[in-house]
């Protein structure tokens, strides 16, 4: 059985937290299989990140380096990873269910003649055949499927927060340079430009105040902002989130969206205003320490998962609440 390989991702020059979680997850599986854990760093200049990853006591850290691997061009990344997997034959390949992972895993699996399972929340080894048993929520989280697939490597993407992040180890990992044979003809999609927008990092908030389709006008989000301002004087960082229909209407950018296809967060408090509580929204905020719901509909699902509920119109409740908070 080959090593368990993990795909390293970076954030702000360092290791992405999800990568540390993958290392911890891989260690558990490796023990069951009596095998090792290795990692691959992909890019045009992989030295710094490979150094960081090497601190985690891995078997090997592969530096998959090429000028075409600058930034994230999916065609180049998939091509390079396909080559690496054929070179080093991992038994299992763990990838974060991140922006990169969602795109890479299905394509890579196809090329390696196997089938990936995406967005897993649990992994274990089948004692009978050493296959990887995957737990995956389906129907937005309304059911949980336990599946297996054929083929080596066994490829999965793993949801954020499923494993605790790994701690640095006493032993350093061996760093191995790998030069994938890539050329321009591989790039079928050309990047013309990237437009950077200001993005909120909802996972850094102490409190998230989220509005849904129940918010009648775009301008009404100003009341939510005022509420956030009032609360931020006493409750740390307070940020504005939303449900998907608000993004659909173009009232807020996607980075504010909470849920299955948005951010998954666990703030100290989550205030859901005019959000009904569809399961795809709930999976993004259900781990909040306290959930407070404001909704006109007593029967809505959000009240079923909330700690505190106010049945009423936000247009009346919020201005009054802001006044009280400022007293």
């Amino acid at each position, binding site marked *: 059985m080959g090593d368990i390989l993990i795909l390293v991702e970076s954030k702000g020059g360092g290791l992405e937290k999800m990568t540390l979680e993958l290392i911890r997850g891989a260690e558990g599986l490796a023990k069951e299989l009596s095998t090792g854990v290795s990692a691959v760093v992909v890019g045009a200049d992989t030295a710094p990140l490979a150094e960081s990853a090497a601190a985690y006591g891995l078997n090997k850290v592969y530096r998959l380096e090429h000028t075409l691997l600058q930034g994230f061009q*999916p065609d180049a990344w998939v091509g390079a990873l396909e080559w690496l997997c054929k070179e080093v034959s991992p038994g299992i390949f763990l990838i974060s269910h991140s*922006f990169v992972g*969602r*795109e890479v895993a*299905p*394509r890579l699996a*196809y*090329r390696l003649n196997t089938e990936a*399972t*995406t*967005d897993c929340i649990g992994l274990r080894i089948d004692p009978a055949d050493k296959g990887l*048993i995957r737990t995956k929520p*389906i*129907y*937005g*989280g*309304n*059911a*949980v*499927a*336990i*599946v297996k*697939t*054929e083929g080596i490597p066994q490829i999965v993407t793993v949801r954020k927060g499923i494993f605790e992040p790994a701690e640095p180890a006493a032993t350093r990992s061996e760093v191995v340079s790998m030069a994938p044979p890539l050329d321009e003809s591989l790039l*079928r*999609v*050309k990047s*013309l430009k*990237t*437009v*950077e*927008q200001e*993005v909120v990092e909802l996972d850094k908030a102490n409190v998230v105040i989220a509005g849904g389709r129940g918010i009648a006008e775009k301008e009404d989000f100003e009341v939510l902002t005022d509420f956030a301002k009032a*609360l931020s004087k*006493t*409750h740390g960082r307070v940020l504005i989130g939303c449900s*998907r229909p608000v*993004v659909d209407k173009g009232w807020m950018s*996607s980075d504010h969206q909470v849920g*299955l*296809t948005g951010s998954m967060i666990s703030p100290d*408090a989550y205030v859901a205003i005019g959000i009904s509580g*569809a*399961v*795809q929204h*709930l999976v993004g905020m259900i781990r909040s320490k306290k959930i407070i719901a404001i909704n006109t509909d007593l029967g809505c*699902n959000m*009240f*079923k*998962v909330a*700690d*505190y509920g*106010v049945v*009423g119109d936000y247009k*009346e*409740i919020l201005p*009054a*609440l802001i006044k*009280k*908070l400022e007293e």
Partner: protein
Amino acid sequence: MKEPKIIVCAKQIPDPEAPFSNVSVNVEKKEVVVDAPDVISPYDENALEAAIRIKEEVGGKITVLSMGRKVSDTVLRKTVAAGADALILLEDAAFERLDSRSIAFVLSSAIKKIGEYDLILTGRQAGDWDSGQVGLILAELLGIPSISLARSIKIKDDSVVVEKLVPVGYEVVEAELPALVTVSNEVGELRYVARTKMMALLRRPISIPKWGTKQLELSVEALNPVQLMELCPPPDMRRECVFIEGASSDEKAGKLAAVFKELR
């Protein structure tokens, strides 16, 4: 350029947005039971909307491909009412609960049977299994470029120019046609189809080809079902909600403010 031939892959599923109290799991049959009518998977509707906008701008022909064990043309006729030109159903008992590779394989066979195409659009993920794999695999199978998570799609000469969602904002990318693009909700909701238009369409006989393994010349052995070992209900998410009562909004607001003070 010539008018583009667009294929939209759209799947019929139990309504993924039904309230969770209407959804249950039959553990024995390993089935999700949804007490709500079937719908077109929401992101596939976004894909159709993107196709219709392209057609409005540069012309073209839209063919909707829908695959399943049993597909209802009443659910899918909505696509024609909204603006698709043709609808093809891929239906066969052997199409039940296949893995992503097999679904992509059947779709690729149907697309090869259709013959000419310029652009294939799929949703970013289906609302039942939430896997987000079929579109990307389909492009691999057909050997064409793929672009994921589109928030806007334009045809320019013989290429497609896409604004693709990325974590820092969006990226403008370009690929030569034919190409495949997976579509996100930021594209916009499928336009509203008036009930009268729907009803008129339901009465009008239109030809909707149905292709199964026979018409596609597929051997059933080539198709792999998902290896579903178990299906479980989700963990219980419920909490005991303390309702904040009061005769006026002011009174409720006062009590709520006290709750926030305690959270500090």
